[in-house]
């Protein structure tokens, strides 16, 4: 699935014994470990409250880890957040940009704070066309955009930043099938450019279209992590539901023939 041309791979995103216990005592992440290399699309599946967004927040240093590290390009984000964030772009579940700004004005602002100050209007136009936003909306205010259009703007911002790693927090939630398909196509092209992409999602169908690696997170623990190639021909949906239903590994393995 999604064979990539041979290229030298580099570790871009790493979670090393990453643990987060909130002040109220809730253990959101419990010593999770995973790694995303350049040109790899890592999909983290999990239900609500599983800890997917917490993992992303730790990478972006919105939270301090209780234990372990979230590394971007080998830099622990809680130790050197500004340095680490130079190498990562982020697309949230519901991209909310500045509603009174046009698409180009939003891109210009986020490109500049992302350290890219050389772009011109044509560059913004090109990237908006690339993500599938027609020219007639480039100068329209974002408040008139649909969710799908805003998600595309979010991806355009990530593209402009040209970071080596991209974090996506349930980016396809609420998108219609066409928009979802276009979104997946965009991710595919980013992966082709060698970006390390980490995507948290509930959307198992979109995920299986594109993922290189799957992980299932449940109550802060990774209960399954497999390369997509290992799951070829398996009923991923059944596997996911069974894992989420708390089946033991043996019954899951019997159903899907895999191991956590």
């Amino acid at each position, binding site marked *: 699935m999604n064979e990539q041309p041979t290229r030298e791979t580099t570790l871009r995103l790493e979670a090393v014994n990453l643990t987060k216990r909130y002040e109220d005592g809730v253990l959101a992440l419990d010593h999770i470990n995973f790694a995303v290399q350049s040109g790899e699309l890592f999909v983290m599946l999990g239900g609500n409250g599983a800890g997917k967004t917490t993992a992303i927040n730790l990478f972006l240093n919105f939270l301090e880890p209780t234990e372990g590290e979230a590394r971007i390009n080998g830099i622990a984000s809680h130790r050197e957040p500004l340095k680490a964030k130079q190498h990562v772009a982020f697309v949230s579940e519901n991209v909310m*940009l500045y509603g009174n*700004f046009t698409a180009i004005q939003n891109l210009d602002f986020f490109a500049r704070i992302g350290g890219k100050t050389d772009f011109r209007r044509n560059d913004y136009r090109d990237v908006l066309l690339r993500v599938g936003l027609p020219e007639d909306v480039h100068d329209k205010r974002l408040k008139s955009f649909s969710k799908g259009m805003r998600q595309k703007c979010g991806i355009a911002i990530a593209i402009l930043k040209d970071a080596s790693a991209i974090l996506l927090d349930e980016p396809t939630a609420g998108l219609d099938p066409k928009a979802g398909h276009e979104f997946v196509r965009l991710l595919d092209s980013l992966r082709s450019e060698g970006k390390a992409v980490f995507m948290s999602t509930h959307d198992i169908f979109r995920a299986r279209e594109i993922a290189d690696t799957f992980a299932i997170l449940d109550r802060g623990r990774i209960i399954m992590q497999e390369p997509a190639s290992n799951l070829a021909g398996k009923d991923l949906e059944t596997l996911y539901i069974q894992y989420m239903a708390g089946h033991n590994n043996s019954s899951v393995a019997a159903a899907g023939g895999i191991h956590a």
Partner: protein
Amino acid sequence: MLSTLVQKELRAMLLSPKFVATFAVCSILMLLSVFTGVQEYGAAVRQYETSTQLSEQQMRQETTWARMTTTVLRQPDPMQIFVGGLTYDIGRWSGISTRNSIKLSGSTYSDDPIFAVFRHIDFAFIVQFILTLFAILFTYDAVNGERESGTLKLVFANAIPRARYLLAKCIGSWLGLVIPICIPIILCMLLVGVMGVSLSAVHWGRLVTFLGISLLLFTFFIVLGVFISSLTRRSSVSFLAALVVWIGFVLIIPRTAVMAADQIVRVPRVAEIEGQRDGYAKDRWATFMEESQERWGSRCSLEELDESERDTELWNRMQEEDSLRRIVEKEIESYETRLQEDLRRRKAAQQHLAFILARFSPASAYQLAAMFLAGTDISLKARYVDAMTAYRTQFNDYVEKKQAETGSTGGVMITMSSESGISITTGRDDVGIDVSEVPRFSPPEYTYVAAVAPIIPDFGILALATMVAFMGAFIAFLRYDVR
């Protein structure tokens, strides 16, 4: 990076529809307030000039020094266009005579009470009440609004230092609000010039300082809004909090401070003072009358004198009585002065305490500073009363000197005689008098230094409050959960 963030803030502010509406309202209000202020000032100047001429004319028409009185007027100050302060509450004129002490009468509000009901809207009012509210309304969601919309998370997914972001928030909000407000301010200045109000260099100095301190208050409320926004996660909460703080600073603290000072330092009311004075005067005059009767009784009868000596003796006795009467007047005056001094001392203590308490609010500090700069502050009355009192002494001394020179007493002597009938004598010199050398009243000078010196603590309070709000915002934002 900083400039990018500042530009974004500016753009976000200027593109906001509420900004356009609020800015338009503020601009119209500013221009209207200055327009009406100039009209009021013009009317006050005309009234001042007319009344001064009338007073001069009355002096010229006087025929005896003994009856010489005059009226002095408070001179309008062009700064009252911008800061009405107490100018409309304090009387505009006082009579100058031997008998009555200085009492400013005829305030604008006593003449036209309708204005006292709703007060004038001046530039200082717009800054203190409207622009500060404007500042709060535009900054209460500066941080938490971005968190709610999700843009804060997106921004901090980039390598943005929090301190720089907050600084950009403050600078951007400040520029976004201040630059557009400069336009109506410039228009107001032009309006003042076009409507023919001439401002001296001192006035300009005071006006520029006033605008500077207005800007400082505006800055405080902008930073305060950012601070409150950094303390709360929801904009609805920060809106309520900002509104409560604004009401506290602008409306509650100043009034509470005055009420508290009134309870702590008791000051007798004017009626009490007048009652004490009248009581003393009544007693003193009663004593004088008793003594006078005794004196008249102890003197030899005029009938015993030759007819040629009788008039002279009568005049001498009357003059003696008159000089004793003057002594009594001086004593009453001296007693009243002591009462007034005590009243002023107590009032000053009460006022001092009220100002200290009120200055817990930067809005009050601003109001006090604005009034001091405009010369329409609480000491305006005292300045004029002092100047008029000094002038009264000068005037009375001059009149007494002239009276002595001409022998005019102003008294009326009625003589009833069975032989010569009734004769009335009004004085020795009932002829025209030259008033060209009578001292004229000069309004108290209000220099730039005199205007600026009292506002130094207020300036310090505003600067300190702004710094504290900024530091608070900074500390709160360093710990702010951007999720």
